[in-house]
């Protein structure tokens, strides 16, 4: 954990390809990312895995900067990955930025790690 990692920003596609108040999946070799777009065009990247029972967060209803997991309704913050309300748990978040309408995600933290599992 202490080793320095250099950011690895990759272009995963145009923001417009994601519906507002929606999400799409980016498949990686060890896991899936859920990339969200809010009503006001902000974007967030989370591991597509609910801290509760591993549900695919990308399939949930997006409201404000939160998503409701489709399996049991946990609400997870898109900004922090933390479960909201009385639930406790945290989904992994990934640095993301939007430049010229393209979404860039830093997946450097993923390199060489096997802790992530595919959601589906």
């Amino acid at each position, binding site marked *: 954990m202490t080793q320095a990692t250099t950011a690895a920003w990759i272009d995963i596609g145009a923001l417009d390809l994601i519906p507002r108040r929606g999400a799409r999946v980016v*498949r990686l070799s060890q896991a899936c990312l859920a990339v969200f777009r809010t009503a006001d065009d902000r974007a967030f990247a989370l591991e597509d895995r609910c801290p509760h029972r591993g549900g695919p967060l990308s399939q949930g209803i997006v*409201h404000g900067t939160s998503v409701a997991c489709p399996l049991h309704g946990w609400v997870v913050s898109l900004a922090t990955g933390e479960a909201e309300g009385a639930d406790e748990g945290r989904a992994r978040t990934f640095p993301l930025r939007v430049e010229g309408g393209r979404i860039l995600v830093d997946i450097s933290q993923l390199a060489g790690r096997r802790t992530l599992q595919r959601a*589906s």
Partner: protein
Amino acid sequence: MRHVQKEVVGAAASPAPRERLVVIGNGMAPGRALERLFEAAPESFAVTIFNAEPRVNYDRVMLSPVLSGERTFAEIIIHGDGWYIDHGVTLYKGHRVVAIDRQAKTATSEHGVVAPYDKLIIATGSTPIVIPVPGSTLAGVLSYRDLDDVNAMLLAAQSRGRAVVIGGGLLGLEAATGLKERGMEVSVVHLMPTLMERQLDPPSSFLLREAIEARGVKVYANANTQEILGTDPIPGPSRVRGVRLDDGTVLPADLVVMAVGIRPSAALARDAGLAVNRGIVVGPDMRTSDPDIFALGECAEAHGQCFGLVAPLYDMAGVVAAQLAGDAKAVFNPSATATKLKVTGIDLFSAGDFADGEDRDEIVLRDAARGVYRRLVVKGDHLTGLVLYGDVSHGAWLFDLLKRGADISGVRETMMFGPGAQGCASHDPAAAALPDDAEICGCNGVRKGRIVEAIVAGSTSLESVRAHTKASASCGSCSGLVEQVIRLTIGDAYKPAAVQPVCGCTDLSHDDIRRLIVAKRLKSIPAVMQALEWKTSCGCAKCRPALNYYLLAAWPGEYEDDGQSRFINERVHANIQKDGTYSVVPRMWGGVTNAAELRAIADVVDKFAIPMVKVTGGQRIDLLGVRKEQLPEVWAELNAAGLISGAAYGKALRTVKTCVGSEWCRFGTQDSTGLGIRLEKFLWGSWTPAKVKLAVSGCPRNCAEATCKDVGVVCVDSGYDIVFAGAAGLDIKGAEALCHADTEAETIAIIAALIELYRQQGRYLERIYKWAKRVGVKEIKAQVVDDVAKRRALADRFVFSQQFAQKDPWAERVAGKDAHEFAPLADLAVA
């Protein structure tokens, strides 16, 4: 004449003879006068009322909501029959008074009833003005005055033809929008260049015109009616067919409503020799030129003025009551009046005098995006007029400043933004800033002080305050203010009626939201959230699916479904499983299948290596473990074999389970399988508040288990027993009997009506058995079984909605709809 002598004899016998009060007219003003009189001097008068209309006292102000369908007549009755009995009032319904004999002190009705009086109130109201153009007496030309006019308009509206409303004032516009709501094509013909020119300035009038036209009502301004055209009188009685304007334009019409103004009904008083000008002349004490006779309401002329709005008429009523009760000092002083248009969704408020003038300043706020316009007219240090359009929430407070003639020099800069902007340290609600004599309820003239009195006397709920003071009992728009007064008076002890809000994003209940979506004609989720003041920017996972359903049910064919507000299963038309894969259930009509369908299913299973195939409880086949990106291909293959989505994932019609019935079974009484298939083909595709499962059993042995379904049919020799509101899930509950039908067609029509009623009344996620428990099985039966017209209307509405709903969602997605749902944004795993 003869009665005089009888009188003298009778009076000596009783120790405390009650004076006889006769009231001619039973409108809102005399109704209010009697209420006040019975409060101030109970038992002192024996009252007789003659009502030319054959009914009790009702809230005429609320006729427009009755016309538009937002209220029923029963809801706008002020005094029911019981009130007259309780107060010992003799009410002659349908008796027009034809003569007053001031010598003999009697009033005589057209049916010959002669009532002697000690005191007389003339409250004959007014008569609509009919403009004397050719054709004004044709059949189909109405005025807008009382319930009979409303009923005549409703009858005419049934043909859904064309209506022309002459007059673009308050009543004309209310009539026009009401008729439009009832399905007519409506035009308004207005003599002046702008609508409601007496209450509005040109900018707000322009906004109003836009809002009226946005509802589909055509407006012809500067338009002078020259003639009302009739049909050819030779084949039958001539009736209206159109209106010709003086520029030659002809507007076709099956109904013409004249709403150009009113004239005080003073003929009776004139014949009796009372002083009559335009109206019946009264002094400040409301007495006519005969001190035993009062005139009250629209027929009266006080201070050289006649009045048509309810607030001053109620003030007059208070004076008449006080005078009768012995308060000789009570006098009527007309104060400024405020106008509100009762067209739901159009908020406007105007009061006072807002004409431009050299000595006047105006303060204007416009917010074009929100359709808000506010104009305050100030003369010296006083507010003299105000027009609010779009947001009228500060109307009561501003109107109070105006009426009191308050010195506004200290609040001049901020008063536009209401009492909350007046630099109070706390964030007090609007009601806190109002003095005790400020009027809270404009309809019923209830002041804040009266409400506080009622609260202190023990009324601590809105309903109780309403019952005791009439505040908010008419149009209801001041309910919020009344609640504020209760909260201010009793603090945290106030417990508003326990409505369960839909979620944390709103304080409104499911029922409120449904009602307001229709009433305010809200047609999108953002529109609902804006108009109903959602507390969050885009709702949450609880309210958005509910709103999506309510909008879909309210505006079939118009509302554009918002997929992002649907739960994933309904968004991708498959059921998500715990591992993130999906299950696919094709429709199997009535649970019947064949070799071709089974072969297609088997081929799909092989081709996509579907890990599990399972027979469901609803008599169909479930394919489990399909990956999301495979769904469109799986559906394409199933579609090719004629299989469509079974909606096993939806708050929608699920299955119709059947037994084999008379076709095979030795006990079968009817073709239960065939009926099940016909029902499923009729009902599929419809969205409902929660899932709907049906079953049809061919005999009372009930092999299809119809009696624990949302809707079930049990066939018997004589026909079909329809049951509903069963449950066999979280709760177990036998179904309730709905009715017996003789034919399949009748069975289907009744079930369509039942499901449509549920679609309209059910709260989102509320199953039929819970809905039935909430609204009552009896009430549901009354609407879908007993009331045949209602049943037909419900079934028609269902059929109308179905034309938009019966599209196979699988086929749409095979054709490319929502393609983004089924493919990853990027696949970096292969890299």
